Structures are given as C-alpha cells and as structure tokens.
C-alpha cells in the first residue's frame, strides 16, 4: 500500500524501541548488578553501567552459592532444575502421546469417560489443591525426591488434546497402508506416528521445558533438603535472608533465566507454534 508518512515510521520505531527498552530493562539491571563488587550495591544507588566483578561473582555463585554454610552451589541448583524440567517434559510428552494414541486409534469401553477424566485435570491446577496434594506426596514418601518433584506434574490434558487433534489430521489411509504392510500397533506408533509427530513433539517440548524449569510453588512445598533445591527456589531463599547479597542473587537470576531464554531464542519458530497451538 502506498502510504508515505515518514513521521509515522519514525514514530513507530520510537514506540518499539521504548517498548523493547522497558521489556529489557529489568534484565539489564540484573546484569549490571551481577557485575558489581560486594559493597557497591549497598551504597544507595545502583550504577547504570556494568562493573568489573562479573567473573568472580558468577564463579563464586557457580561453585559455592552464597558464602554460607548449608547453601547450595548454583551448579547444583541448575542441575536440579534441569533434571526436574527434563523429567516433567519427557514424562508429559510420553504419557500424552500414549493416551492420545489410545483415544484415537482404539475403540474401547469407557473411552469417553477417560477422555473427560483427562480433561478435568485442566480445571485442577496445583495452586487450588496445594494441601491435599502435598499430603498425598508425603504419604507416598516422595518428599525430597526427583520423583516427587516431577511425577505429580506430568499429567497433561493440553498435550493429550494437542496430540489427539494432530492424530486426527493424519490421513486414514496412513494406518490402512501400514496395516496392509504388516505393522501392528507398536510398529505403527514407532515407525509412522512418532516420526510424523516430530514437529509437534518439538514444539511442545519447548513449552513444557519452560513450564518445568519455572516451577516454583511445587518444589517449595515438597523439598526441604538443599540437595534438591532448584535454582528458582534457591534465589528466593537467598533474597529472604537478612541482608541479601544482591550482586550474587542477580548472578543467580541471570543463570536461572538463561536456559529457558536460550531455548526460546534458538527455537523461536517451534516456541510460537507450541504456544499458539496448545491454546487452540
């Protein structure tokens, strides 16, 4: 469309640059703070340019955490977060793929019942059933374990419905051809269905990984042992001390944010696909 309004373009770029600046601002401040010397932040105002203590702050955080007894190193906490996020992601994806496979490719009694049972989980986020769920996990002796951190979160109506929807779009003949070619349910699942679902699996993987990595309330409830502290939780513990060492806290913040942000930046297309399709 011919629309020659130089001022409009200028204005648009201005709006966007301000917008981006506001969005980036908190993280920039975190970066700046994480590079300051220990005492620098206590002097009243924060400098606006990075300091020179970045390396030592990150190294300290990585190796030993805030310098106190019973603190967990960031390396350990990042590892814990990674294990939890991967367990949740892989768990959600596998049980959802299996459920969707059953619902679409089999006819059996109570099919609708199971479908609705899975649907109901959409309406029961952890936040609304905190205490009884905690009690169940405690009764099962799953407190302070990776199983306890991940298994109660792996039921997924969203992923099941997404896979179900995707399976429904696969032509009928794909199954028929495979049956004529001698493939049973397992072969069909492994040789045909999984390869065809790769993009969907990857897109959901991105979303689920971020979901898992960012868990907060759940680990807070069921882990007390520092060996299971995840990075997101660990940061909260550091800030709730008497005099938080903000330069180290911010180094931890940057390290905690980096993995999921990198996932989004490098897999932006899959991320957008995953996000928009899970909400359909």
């Amino acid at each position, binding site marked *: 469309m011919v629309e020659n309004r130089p001022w409009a373009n200028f204005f648009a770029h201005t709006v966007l640059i301000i917008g981006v600046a506001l969005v980036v601002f908190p993280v920039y401040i975190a970066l700046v703070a994480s590079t300051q010397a220990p005492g620098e932040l206590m002097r009243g105002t924060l400098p606006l340019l990075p300091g020179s203590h970045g390396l030592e702050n990150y190294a300290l955080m990585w190796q030993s955490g805030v310098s106190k007894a019973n603190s967990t190193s960031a390396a350990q906490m990042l590892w814990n977060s990674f294990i939890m996020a991967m367990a949740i992601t892989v768990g959600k994806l596998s049980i959802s793929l299996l459920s969707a496979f059953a619902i679409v490719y089999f006819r059996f009694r109570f099919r609708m019942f199971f479908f609705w049972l899975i649907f109901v989980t959409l309406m029961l986020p952890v936040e609304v059933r905190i205490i009884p769920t905690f009690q169940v996990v405690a009764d099962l002796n799953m407190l302070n374990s990776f199983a306890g951190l991940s298994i109660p979160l792996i039921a997924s109506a969203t992923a099941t419905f997404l896979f179900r929807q995707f399976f429904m779009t696969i*032509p009928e*003949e*794909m199954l*028929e*051809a*495979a*049956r*004529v*070619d*001698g*493939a049973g349910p397992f*072969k069909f699942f492994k*040789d*045909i269905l999984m*390869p*065809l679902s*790769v993009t969907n699996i990857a897109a959901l993987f991105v979303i689920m990984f971020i979901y898992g990595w960012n868990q907060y309330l759940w680990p807070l409830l069921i882990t007390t042992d520092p060996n299971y502290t995840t990075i997101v939780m660990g940061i909260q513990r550091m800030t709730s001390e008497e005099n938080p060492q903000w330069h180290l806290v911010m180094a931890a913040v940057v390290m905690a944010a980096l993995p999921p942000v990198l996932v989004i930046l490098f897999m932006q297309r899959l991320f957008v696909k995953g996000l928009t399709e899970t909400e359909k």
Partner: protein
Amino acid sequence: MASITLEGLKKTYAGNVDAVKGIDLHIEDGEFVVLVGPSGCGKSTLLRMVAGLETITEGTLKIGERVVNKLEPAERDIAMVFQNYALYPHMTVYNNLAYGLKNRGFKKDEIEKRVRVAAKMLEIEEFLERKPRKLSGGQRQRVAMGRALVREPAAFLFDEPLSNLDAKLRVQMRVEIKQLQRRLKTTSLYVTHDQLEAMTLGDRLVVLNAGQIEQVGTPMEIYARPATMFVAGFIGSPAMNMLPVAYLKAQGANGLLDNLPEGTDIVGIRPDDMHLAPPAAPHLVVDSTLALYEAAGAESHLYVTLADSDQPTVIRVSGQPPVAEGETLRFFVPRDALHPFNSATGKRMGVLENTALETSLGDTANT
C-alpha cells in the same frame, strides 16, 4: 497368486445401514476384475472388505482356498494401492517400498533386490532416495504401485488409484497398469467410478448399484447387452437413450415393434445407433428438433427434442450436423439396435435377434 471368491458378502453398518447387500463373485487366478459404479454404490467398501480394512458382517471371503474373513490385512497376502497413495511422508521412496518387506522379516539383500526390480519396472529408480513430497503426482502414483509390487502378493487391490491424476497422465497410467498386470499375471481387483477406465482395463467388469451386483461380464458383453436399465445408462457415453415403446408406436412404427419380447415397454437406443441417413435394414423413423449441438472434434453430440415428447435424447454423429440449432431433424434407428427393457423391473427383456454388436457372445450376462 490365487483366485478370490466372495460368497454372500454383506456389510451392515451401525444403525442397520446396508452398504453391501450380499455379493457372490468368483475372480479367477490372474484375472483383472473392475468394480464399477456410481459413488456410494458400495464398491470401495467391498474392496476394503477384501483387503481386511472393513469387517465382514456376513458371508465368506476366500483368497485361494483359504477363508480369510477374520485375518488381518497383513495376513491376507494382498497389496493395495490407495486413492491418495498413502505414502509415508517421512520415509524415502526406497523405505516406502521396503517397509512392508521389513515388517515381514525379509533379509536385507532380498529387500534390496525386490525394491530395485520394482523400481526398474516402474522407472522410479532415480527417485529412490527422495521423500514423497519431492515427487510429482504421477511419480507418487508409481511409488504407490511399487509398494504393492515388491510384495509379490496373491492379489492387487486398487482403490481408484488414478483419480488424483490429470486427464493425460490418467490415460498413460491406465495403459501402464494394464501392461504391468498382463506381464505379472497377478489377480487384480480394481475400483473406479469411471466407466471408460473400467471398460479399458478390466478382463471382466462388475457393475454395482446400491450395494448389489447389476451385471458381471466382459466389457463388450456389458456394452452390447446391458442386463438392466441402470447398466445401460451407466456404461457408454453419452448415456443410452430410453424411449417408451408406446411413443415410438404412436410415431408410426409400421409394425416393427409388434413382436418385442414379452413385457417390453421401453427401449434403449445408443446415441451411435441413431443415424441421419436411412439404413438398409428395417428401421424406425423419428422426427425431432435440434436443441443444442456439441462439437467434440471428430464427432458431434446432438441434443434433440423429440416431436410430441419431452424425453431428452442425444445422437452421436461423425463430423458436423446437417442442420442449424432450432431446425428440424429426422433420424433413423435400425430395429436390431433396440435394447428391450421393462420399466417397472428395470430388467432387460430377453434378446432381439441379430443385435448389431453382438455376434457370438455367451450367455453370462445375467446374474
């Protein structure tokens, strides 16, 4: 290789919908049989029952001497070519062909050998490492055929395999399928709604309507002696004209229609049997007005309005029509070219002596 025998095959869907209402058919070993009929006549369902993709409600299905009613598709020793090809999009052409063999536990070198042979036969060797989406429609069709071929099955089942191709490719592939089947002599069952495809491909045709067989026979038998008004209308293009006997008599039949077979009240006339010049043989004379004419190259189709009637009627002549649209036209029909039917039953009423096209055909027309 094997014969296929269908005995009283029935398919009833939930809610008592009869899709296939009892089919008896014997397909000889090595024979090419085409199931033809309008959409919804049950031809695809019947084929899928043979393939094992639909359950059989009633009746017996034998491939060779084996009753296969309850067997999985993979256990029936058949191969199928699908209308949309159903190629596995994530596998190369090679793996598409090899998949069925792998699942049956063939040795690697045997798979390799069979795939190469089939690829050569179908001229798709150069595409073996490609994915299906990089192929044209015609090439995909060949891959679909290849997948059936490598298995060396007892029978090929084709479900409208050419209907996704453009007209030119369709003719080319039709010829290739026919040649391939002649060479391999594998029993084949082929479903189509295209009567021309059916006529040109099949050793025998099975004309289906509303879940039942209307007629089984060689293409020429069916063309020359359609057993029912449905078959008469379905096979041949333009379709056969149907004129009431009473009307023709009123137009002055001169006793030519007096000794038609018992029960005949309507006669069918193929558009090619309506001549613009009087033939030597005994014939009827009918007056009409030319309503519309279609030039189709070497021949023309004349849509005429009969005098004192609103029966739509088509005449096929070679070259141009002798009169302009809106002018009157007289045509002549040899008595031998009439197909006698009873309009109430829809059935053919016996034989007229000396029917033009038919000379020494057996009496297999009615079922």
